[in-house]
């Protein structure tokens, strides 16, 4: 009886302690989401707020704007390259570092330090590095290095070439975040008991098969965790584009968050800006729902 009361008392205490956080999130996240959604259906297109309802007109205008469609395409390409590139590179580096390397700490720090920089700094330096140069002034940045190494045929226009555009931005983003993925995978690899691998080896599996059938599945939670973090950074990407390329030729480097900024604060089309925010949110939900399903199923199993 006392135990029941104590448990109930503790449960109430739990709820009370979580309450402030929940309330803050309710207001500052969900309240704002509801407001933004409403604004996307409103006629607010001047500085003075106008909350009159106009249906889906803003959505139509946004989707009819060629610039918006380009940004959506860019976002898709960027997300694929950024998330995929970071995961693959991070995993590769973790696997290499896991092999009892001398100076592991040094390499780890070198791969990890870009995380300490802000996207603005990253954007500034990669703008310079991927500046292709020109016939009159000679090559610059990476192109110059490639030339000097005799790999001149690899030179490209990077972000000045509308066909490449956002890919160059992805190169910078992978540089910044792959260290984080590496750290996660390294921790994960270290957490896999050696016996499991030994057992597989004894069974005659090759190293490659061990990775494929033993290690990777065990690392799945990490992969998911990284997917979430990388995915949400990708959808919100803005600072990097501003600092590195701006919208780029033919908007080949433009992203929805950047376009939303211009629509909202320069063109004062608050209604249309809110539309883009809603679309980004929907994109995020598509990302997070599978993760949640997976995670809840795991909990149910445990």
């Amino acid at each position, binding site marked *: 009886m006392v135990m029941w009361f104590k448990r109930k008392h*503790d*449960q109430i*205490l*739990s*709820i009370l*302690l*979580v309450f402030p*956080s929940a309330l*803050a*999130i309710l207001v*500052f996240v*969900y*309240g*704002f989401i509801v*407001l*933004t959604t409403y604004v996307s259906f409103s006629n607010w297109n001047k500085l003075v707020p106008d909350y009159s309802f106009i249906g889906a007109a803003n959505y139509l205008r946004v989707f009819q704007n060629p610039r918006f469609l380009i940004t959506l395409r860019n976002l898709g390409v960027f997300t694929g390259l950024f998330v995929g590139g970071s995961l693959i590179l991070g995993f590769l*580096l973790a696997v*290499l*570092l896991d092999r009892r390397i001398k100076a592991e700490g040094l*390499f*780890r720090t*070198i*791969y*990890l*330090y870009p*995380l*300490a*920089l802000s*996207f*603005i*700094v990253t954007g*500034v*330096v*990669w703008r*310079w*590095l991927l500046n292709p140069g020109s016939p009159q*002034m*000679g090559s*610059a940045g990476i192109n110059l*290095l490639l030339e000097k190494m005799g790999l001149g045929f690899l030179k490209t226009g990077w972000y000045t070439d509308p066909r490449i555009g956002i890919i160059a931005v992805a190169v910078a983003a992978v*540089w910044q975040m792959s*260290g984080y993925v590496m*750290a*996660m995978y*390294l*921790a*994960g690899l270290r957490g896999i008991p050696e016996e499991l691998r030994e057992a597989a080896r004894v069974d005659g599996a090759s190293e490659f098969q061990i990775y494929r059938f033993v290690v990777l599945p065990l690392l799945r939670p*990490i*992969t998911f965790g990284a997917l*979430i973090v990388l995915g*949400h950074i990708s*959808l919100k990407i*803005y*600072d990097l584009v501003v600092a590195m390329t701006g919208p780029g030729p033919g908007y080949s480097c433009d992203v929805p*968050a950047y376009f939303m900024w211009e629509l909202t604060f320069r063109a004062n089309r608050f209604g249309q800006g809110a539309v883009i*925010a809603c679309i*980004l949110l929907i994109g*995020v939900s598509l990302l*997070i729902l599978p993760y949640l399903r997976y995670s*809840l199923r795991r909990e149910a199993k445990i």
Partner: protein
Amino acid sequence: MKIRLFRSFLYIILVIFAIYYLLPLYVLVTTSFKSFEEVNVYAMWSPPKKLSFEAFRRALFSKWGYQGLANNFKNSIIMVIPATIFSSFLGSINGYIFTHWTFPGANIIFILMLFGMFIPYQSILIPLVQVLRFLGLFGTISGLVITHVIYGIPITTLIFRNYYSTIPKELMEAAKIDGASFVGVYRRIILPLSLPGFAVVLIWQFTSIWNDFLFGATIALDPAIQPVTVALNNLAGSYFVEWNVQIAGALLVAMPTLAVYLVLGKYFMRGLLAGALKG
């Protein structure tokens, strides 16, 4: 013999990638030591002909027009430290609740909280300003701290929840049977074990809050209380950019977070190892 060949190959690959990560740092450092006349995109690989500290001096102390960064470092520290500590503790308590003292519906609340991580901040600037004004917090450092704490709750909660879920349930059950209460278990068992989790959260939050620009620029319009990232942006002119000063400033601003990763990096790794981000 084969192994040694393989291992040298390994090192070569590691070094090649290390170069990929270090190249930008080289460009940043050499540019920051050049004078404005020498700064040139086409000469980015050449070391400075004449070593110049002018860029750093102007970035820190410039009294020509805009104030240098020196003042704003203080503001950033005043803002970042409380924000980091509060959001980390909140995350710890929430994580604790969600793993070991759950109540019906807790899972749903957790998921809803997590979603908060994903809103694009540009889209909520206007209501944010209005709410802060309503609370009388607009234009103050406290307002900035509270904003960072609130928007940090989802990620800190996530990290701690994952971390605490690796603490064996038996430990918890034993303590509860011993009659320990909510607070007691937290104090005696959870908190002592939380160090690795805190390592990850503190480092992550410190970095994100230190590097934030948007909230700092929106909420703190008075230059006297602006964080250093906003001041850094102002080092750029509105018509043309003095790249050496800009980059010198950027390096200075990155020093604290770099130092945190360099010095505390191994605790970060240990925290990850201990399951802080297992998903």
